[in-house]
């Protein structure tokens, strides 16, 4: 079925008054983001497609004459037969299936010149859509270096659409591209390929049904009919219009018939596309030189994925990442802390004492400060993740770790998010976007906060200090306990991942069909943009939730008001939080905790490190300048009403175990809510983590007591 060539596509022309909308599509790793950044600069808006956790990026480019052009950056896809929510969104937008996003007028297709054949597969599917397409052949320089010349003119003649040679990293070809994008009329592709005879009748029947029942335009209907044949699992995401029952019926009938006949319908279709691509490639690729031996990437990989050096490299990269987070983030974090304290003091001085002042200083400023304190870690982590991704190392890390991760039913891509969570679960959870499989991603999000993050350190340190007082105890014991807590969290994370993959989020074992792209030099601009974008998303989306919960928690500890002249300690004791602590005592007593510890558990729901300051108020021994000695002494003196000491070594251990498992961080909750698009999963996460914390603490304390500790 040949399309008429060189039809001017009028409805899509920017001659009309409205801004033309381009969709930017391409395979992963073909330089799509770089091109998008180069086209739109900082004029980008990042949001979510409603109902799916796929990022929607829209930017504005300007033509040579200053006319605005809207560009939607669709998620990278290898095929329109979607295998992940990302690819499903790309498919649905291009087919006009999404109610929230109008079908783009024109399509900008970017391909990697060094990998023409596989990249052309997606192009071949896209040309079916009968929309005006501009083809951008990126990485011409890299192709030339490897002895391959892509004859742009021939490709243009072959396809009948504008083809632009481009080097997105240094802006070459950008002007030509913008000129092409502002053309009022674009030719449609000369896209002649024969649908294999074995499946042609089915395509015709499906097309007819899609036109009649699903009200699709003929071209789109044909393209969709072809996709249905390879889209076996039909990855459906919310927001996409379902097919008419009649169309589904026809599809199933044909599949049943083919199964009976032994027809390989999907294979036939893919084969015929690759045959057509093969003919195009033979005509347009000029092998100007033979690549002399292994490429630079091959040489790097022989070290980086080596059975010995591979682990060493991975270890070194991860150590560097953690050292940077812990050392570099400390200064800005202290600075934010100090600035927030200064702001609080300023408000205290400027306003008359009263509830409003307390609300602003303790509730609002405290809450906002507690949220943005995570910014330095998020920025540093995403700087590293951006670097790892744009150089190509990320794929290698996933390759190396896949075997280990597969033991719990995940794949290698969950490794970096989980590892990052040792620093802070927030960026770790935000980094799960690279995991295509929705269930795997959810499992990773659910277990990520079990990795002991840096906010648990103050609690661990205080408990260890209370547990093994004085300097008589060897440092090794303290380190040993610390390592034990980290091990416990890690074990918990993998245990629950294993459990969830087998029960709640049961699914096919994740695929590891992944490209290992050649190593490339990172682009500072792209990495910086990515990093700032993440930080902004965190502030905007998580900020409101963090602020809201902080104010609630402030209210709980500030009301009802104690009588005039009460100390901070007395105020807290008789506040809602204090009363809740009392009410909680029967529940936490089997863990060895009294109501005073209960207050700490409640207030530290905001963030784990708050436990330390709450204990300071509860025991009237504020830690000054990070020196917890007075607090430690006060805690050592704390007793149950019957005179037994409260903080026995066993209780200290149990309390640490509680913090290993319990979901005590509103910023994480806020991020999980954003990343899973609702309250269902964060609430489940609070329930399962805190439930586990209680259970494990119960076992630890009761066993310990029975053993006479």
């Amino acid at each position, binding site marked *: 079925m040949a399309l008429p060539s060189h039809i001017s596509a009028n409805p899509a022309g920017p001659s009309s008054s409205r801004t033309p909308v381009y969709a930017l599509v391409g395979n992963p790793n073909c330089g799509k983001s770089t091109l998008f950044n180069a086209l739109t600069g900082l004029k980008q808006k990042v949001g979510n497609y409603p109902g799916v956790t796929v990022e929607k990026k829209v930017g504005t480019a300007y033509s040579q004459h200053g006319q605005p052009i809207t560009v939607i950056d669709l998620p990278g896809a290898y095929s329109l037969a979607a295998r992940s929510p990302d690819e499903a969104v790309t498919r649905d937008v291009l087919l006009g299936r999404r109610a929230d996003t109008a079908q783009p007028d024109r399509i900008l297709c970017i391909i990697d010149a060094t990998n023409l054949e596989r990249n052309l597969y997606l192009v071949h599917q896209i040309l079916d859509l009968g929309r005006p397409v501009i083809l951008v052949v990126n990485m011409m320089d890299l192709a030339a270096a490897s002895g391959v010349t892509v004859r742009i003119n021939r490709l243009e003649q072959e396809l009948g659409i504008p083809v632009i040679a481009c080097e997105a990293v240094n802006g070459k070809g950008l002007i030509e591209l913008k000129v092409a994008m502002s053309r009022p009329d674009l030719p449609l592709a000369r896209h002649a390929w024969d649908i294999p005879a074995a499946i042609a009748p089915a395509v015709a029947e499906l097309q007819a049904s899609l036109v009649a029942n699903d009200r699709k335009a003929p071209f789109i209907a044909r393209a969709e009919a072809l996709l249905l044949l390879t889209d076996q*699992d039909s990855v459906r995401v919310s927001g996409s219009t379902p097919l008419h029952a009649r169309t589904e019926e026809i599809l199933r009938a044909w599949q049943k018939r083919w199964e009976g006949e032994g027809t390989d319908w999907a294979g036939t279709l*893919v084969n015929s596309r690759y045959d057509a691509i093969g003919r195009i490639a033979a005509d347009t690729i000029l092998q100007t030189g033979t690549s002399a031996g292994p490429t630079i990437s091959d040489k790097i990989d022989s070290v980086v*994925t080596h059975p010995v050096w591979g682990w060493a490299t991975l270890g070194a990269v991860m150590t560097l990442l953690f050292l940077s987070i812990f050392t570099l983030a400390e200064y800005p974090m202290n600075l934010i802390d100090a600035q927030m304290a200064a702001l609080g003091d300023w408000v205290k001085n400027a306003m008359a004492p009263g509830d409003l002042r307390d609300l602003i200083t303790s509730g609002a400023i405290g809450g906002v400060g507690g949220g943005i304190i995570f910014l330095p870690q998020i920025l540093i982590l995403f700087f590293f993740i951006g670097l790892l991704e744009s150089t190509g190392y990320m794929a290698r890390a996933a390759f190396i770790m896949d*075997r*280990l991760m597969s033991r719990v039913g995940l794949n290698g891509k969950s490794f970096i998010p989980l590892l990052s969570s040792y620093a802070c679960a927030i960026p770790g959870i935000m980094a799960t976007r690279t995991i295509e499989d929705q269930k795997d991603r959810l499992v990773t999000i659910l277990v990520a906060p079990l990795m002991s993050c840096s906010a648990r350190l103050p609690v661990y340190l205080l408990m260890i200090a209370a547990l093994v007082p004085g300097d008589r105890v060897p440092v090794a014991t303290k380190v040993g306990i610390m390592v034990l807590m980290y091990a416990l969290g890690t074990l918990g994370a993998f245990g629950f991942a294993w459990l969830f993959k087998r029960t709640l989020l049961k699914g096919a074992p994740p695929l590891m*069909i992944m490209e*290992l792209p050649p190593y490339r030099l990172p682009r500072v601009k792209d990495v910086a943009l990515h990093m700032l974008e993440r930080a902004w998303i965190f502030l905007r989306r998580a900020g409101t939730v963090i602020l809201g919960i902080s104010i609630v928690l402030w209210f709980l500890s500030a009301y009802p008001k104690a009588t005039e002249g009460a100390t901070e300690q007395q105020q807290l004791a008789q506040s809602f939080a204090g009363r809740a602590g009392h009410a909680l005592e029967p529940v936490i007593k089997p863990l060895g905790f009294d109501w005073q510890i209960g207050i700490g558990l409640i207030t530290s729901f905001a963030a784990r490190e708050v436990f330390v300051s709450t204990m300071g108020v509860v025991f009237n021994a504020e830690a000054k300048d990070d020196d917890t000695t007075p607090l430690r002494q006060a805690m050592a003196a704390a007793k149950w009403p019957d005179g037994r000491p409260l903080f026995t070594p066993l209780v200290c251990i149990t309390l640490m175990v509680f913090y290993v498992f319990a979901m005590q961080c509103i910023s994480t909750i806020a991020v999980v809510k954003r990343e899973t698009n609702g309250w269902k999963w964060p609430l489940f996460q609070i329930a399962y983590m805190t439930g586990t914390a209680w259970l494990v603490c119960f076992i630890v304390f009761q066993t310990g007591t029975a053993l006479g500790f």
Partner: protein
Amino acid sequence: MSASLKLSELTVGASAIVREYPKTGSAFVRLREMGLLTGTRITLIRTAPMGDPLEIKVRGYNLTLRKSEAEHVLVELVA
């Protein structure tokens, strides 16, 4: 015609031609879409440090797949 063997049984560095593998299943349809077709020449580049997944060269680029999929892909050695 040399004997066919499984892709998972290739030795590192060996090249082979893909003969056949299952028609259905999302992994196998995706492998086809990634360019792994009957008659396509592939080379086993390496295995990951723990022996799985595999890295192969196909149509000029490097692709990973797990042994569990590679076991179903029949190939024929080429010199």
